[in-house]
């Protein structure tokens, strides 16, 4: 699937809370087929401190509207500027980038695990899996009730389990504390979220021998395999998270 560089028009900027917003972007040409786990490199205009592009996972795709969505957390200067984009502003993207989550067999019992804004690629993945005939369980962890996002969307895909760090909703604790992990037998886990969470989930999966894929968020310069800045140590040596990833099977990672 050839990569493109294209101006997208903002059709919506929905603020979820203090830190998070969802940009809906309309392509200026027909969207190619996109795969869950893929990401874009966005050029932040008007931010003197932002020199390089910023990578964001594809959060959702609507081929009928020819739009895609990014779920963005305000982490610093670049994302701060993006949060101010409004209707009819433009955002230049290089896309689609990276590999994708593997397509499981229809009979496999799947668990999607996400935390905080790391849930970004999970919605697209969940919808994709559902259309493939899967109905994955979904385990989401947030800091507290107020931070929970898009629960209703996930509920359309499969059964949703929640944890909050303060116990204000769902189970109290981290995703790996949720009882569903000991009660159910999964064939495969797809996980994305903060590094510590992914490592914990990977640890759980490894000890149980469950197939597990994680989506990494290494610092990137180019996003297209040209700079070798984004590497992760794998059993096959240093690999680029931008082209060999961002999705890796935990068996390949030297974690």
């Amino acid at each position: 699937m050839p990569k493109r560089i294209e101006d997208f028009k903002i059709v919506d900027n929905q603020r979820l809370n203090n830190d998070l917003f969802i940009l809906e972007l309309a392509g200026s040409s027909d969207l190619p087929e996109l795969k869950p786990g893929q990401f874009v490199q966005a050029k932040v205009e008007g931010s003197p401190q932002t020199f390089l592009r910023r990578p964001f996972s594809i959060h959702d795709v609507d081929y009928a509207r020819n739009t895609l969505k990014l779920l963005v957390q305000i982490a610093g200067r670049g994302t701060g500027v993006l949060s101010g984009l409004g209707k009819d502003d433009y955002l230049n993207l290089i896309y689609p980038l990276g590999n994708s989550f593997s397509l499981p067999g229809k009979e496999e019992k799947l668990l999607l695990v996400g935390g905080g804004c790391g849930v970004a690629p999970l919605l697209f993945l969940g919808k994709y899996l559902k259309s493939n005939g899967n109905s994955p369980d979904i385990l989401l962890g947030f800091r507290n009730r107020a931070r929970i996002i898009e629960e209703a969307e996930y509920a359309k895909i499969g059964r949703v389990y929640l944890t909050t760090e303060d116990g204000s909703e769902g189970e109290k604790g981290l995703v790996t504390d949720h009882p569903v992990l000991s009660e159910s037998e999964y064939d495969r886990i797809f996980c994305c979220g903060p590094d510590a969470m992914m490592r914990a989930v990977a640890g759980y999966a490894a000890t149980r021998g469950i197939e597990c894929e994680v989506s990494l968020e290494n610092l990137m310069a180019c996003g297209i395999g040209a700079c070798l800045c984004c590497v992760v140590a794998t059993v096959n040596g240093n690999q680029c998270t931008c082209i060999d990833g961002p999705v890796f099977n935990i068996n390949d990672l030297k974690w």
Partner: protein
Amino acid sequence: MVDLRFSIGSLEFKNPVLTASGTFGYGSEFDDFMDVSKLGGIIVKGTTLEPREGNAYPRMAETPSGMLNAVGLQNKGIDYFEKHIYPRISGYDTNVMVNINGNYIEEYVALAERVSRLEKIPAIELNISCPNVKMGGMAFGTNPVSAREVIRAVRAVFPGILIVKLSPNVTDITEFAHIAEEEGADSISLINTLVGMSVDIKKMKPALSAITGGLSGPAIKPVALRMVWQAARAVKIPVIGIGGIMTASDAIEFFLAGASAIQVGTASFIDPQAAVKILQGIEAYLIAGKFSGIDDIIGLINRTV
């Protein structure tokens, strides 16, 4: 039509826009965005005799109008290059050049010999300026004695076009430009990255695993331009300007200061079409100024001051 051709010795380039080593992969990474064969040439990733894993992550930090990298010459080595990459890239209708690196002079020499056997690689860029490796690299490029030795040794075994890539981390760039010329280099390219550093004040640690890294991007353009101007006045061989070139206007500054060609580096990360856009912009500038070719503006500021 303006004449954009330039040449180094017997080697002709269709135009003076090249891509900088380590910033353009092997060219194919950019096939989706442009017809790479339109460029004057591409210089592939820094290559070594043996495969290298490079430095640990994190290897990159953004800085004001620039970036630091400490990739550390990760590459699969010359064997892999010859078998798997060379067949692929030798199809480009442009000059494909290899940037060679080593810990010891012997490695540079062995590598140069290997590359000299690759028919479709007309030139090497001898990198004595990589700041991101513990041995070799910049250690050669900042010491006049070892710079001379390694250039001489490589020149002795490499019959093709030899470009020496200079380090800006020196007191007097003209000293190294002279050495390269005296030892028979056909051209010099500069600048490689400036050694820099960034600290993560939240983690209270250096931002890079290797602590220091190489600074590239527009931040270094004024330093690069100054060194290119100095070097071009010091030597007769063509000088290839590198450093922070993002637009045609940046490139033209380098030509006016004395560069015969330029390399586009970090710019390609932000706009993968940067190199072709720069090429188009140079052409437009020459046409607007009613110049007959790129030669007309090379070193022009030396005539106006």
